[in-house]
């Protein structure tokens, strides 16, 4: 693992008495991708929302290249891209307007070239002028993907990006994910799908009831019986 770029230690989040994330800690090197597996309700989405800066941890610290995360800190949001499994786009704005709106929020100056280019990258250039609510689920996810990578974040968070995608959309997504593996960006991917999860991962984790019950380098993981160890860890954690 080359020099750690992202450090997370003791991340905890309570919702009243419920502890959704319990003392999660890990570090990621430059250009590394961590895949987090886990059953529903394990707190994976909560963990991602904490890493994105959208949700404050009750305890624990996250830092990216030495910049410690403070809630509402614009510097953090400039470096982080977050793709949720819901597509979160403005239905009444066209695709072009959606991206230009978020681009202006990020203070990007070259929108007139960047937006068409990004729409092209996710294969939606032809629909640029139509309202976003007319898009299918797969297209919405691709627009949301283009939006979360619009400002070229160095730290990318993907929450179940493959769910509900048709074959074509999934292939576009895989294509974009491989471009993310350019050695410069750090990525955390949350998914149920073992094969898709392992395919690009440098490190693998299993989260159950808020805690990491497994955290290994991809090399140490044998793909064949990973399924068994995964299920075993889930039962152990109860």
């Amino acid at each position, binding site marked *: 693992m080359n020099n750690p770029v992202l450090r997370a230690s003791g991340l905890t989040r309570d919702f009243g008495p419920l502890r959704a994330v319990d003392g999660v800690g890990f570090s990621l090197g430059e250009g590394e991708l961590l895949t987090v597996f886990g059953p529903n309700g394990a707190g994976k989405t909560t963990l991602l929302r904490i890493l994105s*800066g*959208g949700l404050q941890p009750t305890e624990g610290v996250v830092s990216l290249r030495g910049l410690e995360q403070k809630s509402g800190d614009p*510097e953090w949001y400039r470096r*982080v891209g977050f793709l949720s499994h*819901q597509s979160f786009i*403005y239905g009444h*704005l066209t695709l072009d307007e959606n991206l230009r709106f978020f681009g202006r*929020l990020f*203070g990007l100056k070259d929108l007139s070239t960047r937006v068409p280019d990004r729409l092209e990258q996710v294969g939606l250039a032809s629909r640029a002028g139509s*309202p976003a609510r007319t898009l299918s689920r797969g297209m919405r996810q691709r627009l949301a993907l283009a939006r979360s990578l619009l400002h070229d974040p160095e730290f990318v968070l993907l929450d179940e990006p493959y769910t509900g995608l048709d074959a074509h959309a999934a292939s576009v997504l895989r294509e974009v994910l491989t471009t993310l593996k350019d050695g410069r960006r750090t990525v955390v991917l949350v998914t149920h799908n073992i094969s898709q999860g392992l395919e690009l991962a440098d490190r693998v984790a299993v989260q159950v009831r808020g805690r990491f019950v497994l955290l290994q380098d991809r090399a140490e993981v044998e793909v064949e019986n990973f399924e068994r160890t995964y299920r075993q860890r889930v039962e152990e954690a109860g």
Partner: protein
Amino acid sequence: MDYLRQVGALVWKDLVVELRTRERVAAMGAFTVLVGILFSFAIDPSVVQPQDIASGLIWMTVIFGGMLGLGRTFHLEEDDGAFQCVLLSPIPRDALFLGKVIANFILLTVVTALVFVVFALFFDLGFGDHPLALAAVVLLGVLGFVAVGTLFSAMSARTTMGETLLPILVFPLLIPVVIYGATATSSLLQGLPVSEVDGNIRMLAAFALVALASGAGLFRFVVEE
């Protein structure tokens, strides 16, 4: 410079979505005209001269119509869910608040103008001899109202009671706007000199300033998770 562009982007987005859906402006517009009609039947002109109580009716109509529109501000955002992504962008929270306030202010000013026209029509009101002073009074009052309303609309949208909580939270705080606004409007409509309403305008401006400053400062605690 980024700050202004970010606020501008927000105002642009809100107004474009509003123009396309026309949901809120239609609802508020229809509401205010209908309230005007109801008042015309509810008040017996032989007993009460509408001119005397018009300003009170106007302000009540604007506030109730405003409640209708403001309550929806963050409701629409929650539906799309896209607001979460706006929160993940590097926009400072007070810019986010000001963007919303300006968009709501423009929307409510349009509706208030409509209310004045409707009441002028139904109650045969002039706009007094000092339309400029009247505009100052109304605009400052609406600005204070929108600033408080936007902050607590964001809050009530995040509670289980939703929009029903909004009037309970906001009405006690609006007393100064109602008192200074309605009194100033009635004296202007009766053609009294502008000097009569100087104090009111200053107080309305003070209220708007306090509402904007406190809203901008506290908005992050309302939207933060």
